[in-house]
């Protein structure tokens, strides 16, 4: 007979392993970007891993679908996308999840329930609302999840999507990844009322704040919300309080806009550190080694893939053959 404690440990191990894969993937992506092996722009997820992992661990893709933001590598991996194909996308390779057409910001992986990463702030809320509408009208018992940033809470799609979902009682969970900043601007400076979760009341919905650096807390809060959605109880607005360790994107130096000591305080609440402290050291080491190997292999595989093929015929529309 397996004890409750060991079930919980097993669950935490699973969640930690996921967070670790994301952390290592992002660290590697950062290095590739700094050496210009990844071009353009990337938005890194270190520090926020518990949000994606806590929520996605509950979902059953492809029946359930997720819309994420341009800061989407974490959600993507948490849903089960292959790291080699995500690296391939970032590197513009033919093996990329979108064959190099999308790049870091706009990944789609429907097979794993990823409706897309949305580069237009707010776009994820609207797209997921539509997925929830499809689930409701097709009676497939699917649940949709929209991840969005604190900055998106001030945007048109937030309001129109949530009102629509509430009116129609759609099976959806809106998950705010509140990392305290929209680019270089502190959330509080541009967000009236002081609480994003509290905005749920405007639509008659439950709004819940959760410690976004505690993967079990995120998972527990999300479980309730997903269950509500699946049982026709309508939308929930979940606000996960977290922090991004790196800059917003590209080469910005966060010291220009962060108060001294703020990062350090959040690093002490690193979601991975909090989880690992509750695991057996050997198990943690084992997982670390496995994850490191997986990410290194994935990168090798992506690097070996050919560049995206410009000679392949392409059309912006799908036509009957």
């Amino acid at each position, binding site marked *: 007979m397996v004890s409750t404690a060991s079930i919980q440990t097993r669950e935490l191990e699973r969640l930690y392993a996921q967070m670790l894969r994301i952390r290592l993937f992002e660290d590697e992506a950062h290095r590739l970007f700094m050496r210009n092996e990844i071009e353009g722009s990337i938005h890194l997820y270190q520090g926020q891993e518990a949000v994606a992992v806590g929520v996605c661990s509950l979902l059953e893709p492809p029946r359930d679908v997720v819309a994420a933001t341009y800061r989407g590598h974490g959600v993507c991996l948490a849903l089960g996308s292959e790291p080699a194909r995500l690296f391939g996308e970032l590197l513009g390779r033919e093996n990329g999840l979108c064959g190099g057409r999308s790049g870091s910001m706009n990944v789609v992986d*429907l097979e794993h329930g990823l409706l897309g990463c949305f580069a237009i702030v707010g776009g994820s809320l609207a797209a997921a*609302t539509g997925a929830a509408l499809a689930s409701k009208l097709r009676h497939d018992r699917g649940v949709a999840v929209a991840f969005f940033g604190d900055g998106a809470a001030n945007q048109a799609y937030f309001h129109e*999507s949530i009102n629509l979902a509430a009116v129609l009682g759609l099976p959806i969970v809106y998950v705010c990844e509140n990392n305290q900043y929209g680019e270089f601007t502190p959330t509080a400076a541009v967000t009236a009322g002081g609480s994003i979760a509290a905005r749920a009341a405007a639509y008659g919905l439950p709004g819940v704040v959760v410690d976004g650096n505690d993967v079990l807390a995120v998972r527990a809060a999300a479980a309730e919300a997903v269950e509500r959605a699946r049982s026709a109880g309508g939308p929930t607005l979940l606000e996960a309080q977290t922090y991004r360790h790196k800059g917003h994107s590209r080469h910005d130096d966060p010291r220009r806009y962060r108060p001294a000591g703020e990062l350090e305080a959040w690093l002490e609440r690193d979601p991975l550190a909090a989880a690992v402290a509750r695991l057996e050291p050997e198990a943690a080491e084992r997982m670390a080694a496995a994850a490191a190997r997986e990410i290194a292999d994935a990168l090798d595989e992506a690097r070996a893939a050919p560049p995206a093929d410009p000679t392949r015929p392409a059309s912006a529309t799908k036509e009957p053959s």
Partner: protein
Amino acid sequence: MSYETSYRLAVRDALAEELERDSTVVLLGEDVRIGGVFNATPELFDRFGPERILDTPISEMGFTAAAFGAAVRGLRPVVEIMFGDFLGLVLDTLANQAAKYWYVSNEQASVPLTVRTTVGAGARFGAYHSQTPVGWLLGIAGLKIVAPATPADAKALTKAAIRDDNPVVVLEHKLLYGRKGEVADADAPVERIGAAAVRRGGGDVTVAAALASLEHSLTAAELLAGEGIEAEVIDLRSLRPLDRATLAESAAKTGRLVVVEEGPPTGGYAAEVVAAVVEAAGPTPVRRVTMPDLPIPFAASLEDAVLPGPDRIAAAVRSLVGEPATVPR
């Protein structure tokens, strides 16, 4: 094989037939249950119920973007935007999400989304309810635009739009809703979007038009015929993609091109038709007949003065016929 009805009910019948045939088709919009403000969707709610015919909040951005997401996930939503003037609110969704998804996702899924909207001036609705803002949409790769000028096409092109696997905008002209004509039965084959139609043959000049401008062009052609000028009148039907072959063939034959557009003088389909024809058929004398570079005014005396009617079309043709045509090849 066909029956007579109005442009308005031709739209309704197209919707009804597709709703009947395919359970993934749903209609969303403001006040669509009751039939919509132009009464183009009457009785659909009674027939198909609240899971197929959905009244929305006044949230064009939100519900159109949601329809995009739903289209990726297996529905074939038809969205009604009450007036084309409001398309600005959904441009982000159309241009940045719906139209790009097939290509950027590397062909994981297409977006079978239809957006119906009412356009057109002449009803004294003023600057914010009279536009035909084709220019906003013409440059969006991945989007199609159809523009029915007859009841038959109101039905045929609406059905073609719904069957298309890509986002399609259907422009319905508010002054045409009352027009009567023969339309095809439910079992008629559904065309693929992209074909223009020659509505009148003629060898002296090609006149290309869409929507209400087609009627004006045909009227102008009659006037001109009385003067011995034979205009070939082409109904564009699909504004994106354009039927370049039909246009170029006609222009190569007549050696002259007039494009009529109830829209601003720049940046509309008239510019695109001119450029496409000149590229395809070689140097050609052309005229655009459009509205002046102004918002559409309310007062009858002002609005009538800006509409591109038969007299202005005929005058443009006459001035072109005064110039040498390109040598037919």
